[in-house]
């Protein structure tokens, strides 16, 4: 007979060992996948790394810069979602909240393009955060007041947001008739660059530290973690759980909205239905891969963006760029499996005499 028992909280060394094991398992499983595609796995891994770090001869930094461009929205959305996940609130709506942030920022880019640049950037940033936060607040209010399932509600809101963009593109914000596009925004809205990449990366890294400190060292962070562990405990301790949920969801959506604003003002310079690039969903995978720990999220986001940039630089007749998605999900799958061995032990039980 086998029996599965819970382990006491494992030590740091054992944890690191298991996570390293999970990473190796993912590398091997990914290699098996690439071998099934008829490729030499280690060559492909090498090409991915080369594609992510080695730029062209004229601009050696171009590859790293493109990797960072992918890194910023992944990190931001994942950080935002982590706030909700720490509270065990299933915010699957990062995609929609990011889109709303992009819409709000685009509104300022369209209607007030001639404001002084710093003022315009700040207005777009605030509008993006507010729109994302409010979009997230609706399911949160319904959850608190009516007990509506938030997983499904936030999921549906993604598509409402997506088709809102589709409407704006071919409706009120259409640039040329018959062509579903908002057109390129004025140069005045573009975020300044630092080391060749828009300053969003600086914001994202600062937010990583800020959210880490918020979760670890503030009363609000403590409250939301307690509410995540057990709402009954939180209530018994006199916390107002409803208020905690609303506040946290607003922050969660606001950070996702910020990601949308940065995508518009830093990279796209326009608003399109492809503004998120699926980051709202990838960010969920990322947050759980990193066990909802902000510094680990930054690390995991780096790995994910290397996979994406690296895969996209491989010629498509060798391997399609979407292989990055497969490798990312293999990574999470193997961490999920190894997590079992971190939390549980399998005991062999002798048959009863």
């Amino acid at each position, binding site marked *: 007979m086998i029996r599965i028992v819970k382990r006491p909280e494992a030590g740091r060394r054992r944890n690191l060992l298991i996570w390293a094991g999970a990473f190796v398992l993912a590398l091997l499983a990914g290699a098996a996948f690439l071998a099934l595609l008829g490729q030499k796995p280690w060559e492909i891994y090498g090409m991915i790394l080369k594609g992510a770090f080695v730029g062209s001869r004229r601009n050696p930094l171009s590859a790293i810069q493109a990797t960072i461009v992918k890194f910023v929205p992944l990190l931001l959305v994942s950080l935002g979602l982590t706030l909700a996940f720490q509270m065990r609130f299933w915010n699957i709506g990062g995609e929609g909240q990011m889109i709303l942030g992009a819409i709000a920022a685009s509104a300022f880019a369209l209607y007030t393009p001639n404001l002084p640049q710093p003022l315009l950037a700040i207005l777009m940033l605030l509008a993006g955060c507010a729109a994302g936060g409010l979009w997230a607040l609706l399911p949160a209010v319904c959850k608190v007041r009516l007990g509506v399932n938030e997983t499904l509600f936030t999921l549906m809101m993604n598509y409402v947001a997506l*088709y809102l963009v589709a409407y704006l593109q071919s409706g009120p914000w259409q640039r040329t008739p018959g062509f579903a596009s908002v057109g390129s925004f004025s140069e005045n809205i573009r975020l300044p660059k630092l080391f060749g990449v828009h300053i969003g990366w600086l914001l994202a890294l600062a937010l990583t530290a800020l959210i880490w400190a918020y979760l670890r060292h503030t009363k609000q962070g403590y409250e939301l973690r307690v509410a995540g562990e057990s709402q009954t405990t939180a209530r018994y301790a006199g916390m107002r759980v409803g208020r905690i949920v609303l506040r946290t969801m607003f922050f969660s959506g606001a950070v996702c909205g910020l990601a949308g604003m940065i995508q518009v003002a830093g990279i796209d310079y326009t608003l399109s239905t492809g503004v998120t690039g699926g980051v709202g969903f990838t960010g969920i995978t990322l947050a759980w891969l990193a066990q909802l720990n902000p510094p680990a999220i930054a690390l995991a986001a780096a790995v994910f963006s290397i996979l994406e940039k690296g895969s996209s630089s491989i010629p498509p007749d060798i391997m*399609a760029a979407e292989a*990055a998605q497969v490798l990312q999900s*293999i990574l999470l799958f193997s961490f*999920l*499996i190894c997590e079992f061995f971190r939390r549980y032990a399998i005991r062999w039980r002798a048959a009863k005499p």
Partner: protein
Amino acid sequence: MSTFLNFLSAAILAGTPLLYGTLGELICEKAGNLNLGVEGMMWVGALAGFYAAITSQSAVLALLAAFASGAACAAFYAFLTVSVRANQNVAGLTLTTFGVGLSLVLGHRMASHTAPQLPHELKARLASWALPGGLSLNPLTLPALILCAAAALFYAKTRMGLHVRAVGENPGAADAAGIHVPLVKYVSIILGGGICGMGGAFMSLITANGSWQPSGIVNGFGWIAVALVIFVRWNPLLAVLGSFLFGAFRSMNYYIPNRMAAIPQAFYQMLPFVLTIVVLLATSGRKNARRAEPAALGGSYFREER
């Protein structure tokens, strides 16, 4: 009149993949597992079904291949959520990422030179039948209808169906009554995943008109199916009506009078999701008598942690 019948036929055609997806997810949710991997399983089924169709020239083998591939993905999801005790949302979402990525990569290889086409003979056999009265029906819609009727009978009338529902409502009590909870979950998840895969095959064989498009074929139908399960209150017979209704939204803009065409197309596409939100709101509440959701949906059950 004939315009209306054409519209009805188009709605059924557009609604059939939704019906497969909805029924598959419904079967999975009845056993208490919310599988957010429907989209991924449908993509994988679309690819496997199409590949089997062009290599074997057989519609039956295509459906079987789609079922098998969807079931294989679901089996892995079941392993993660039931055996390894991973969170259902995380495992399901990752399954979607995996399935979409895998079928885009493999589909790209299949379509590297020219867009592959279904053989003419098979395409002719898969053409819709003209029913007397002016309605037309696709032969691959029939299996979905039969499966729905079977599921409705199974859950309402059989002892095993009662056992499955018990697992979805209260796994602890079901376990105490001697029902093998992990087994019920595994079987339900795998069966449901296979049916989702068949929905994907319907899209690559019929909806996409028999040619593989490298940009993808399923494109969000899996998520609508997840929404539809709520919309139809976990009822397999209502799933038929609900799927065809949502299919009607998809094809509505081709049939409405010109005067109403001022409503932008994006709103028609948004409608299914807004309606689902309305249904979520209308049927929520912890003490709602109309609540049809399996009580233990999305929760994990491990005997040792009871």
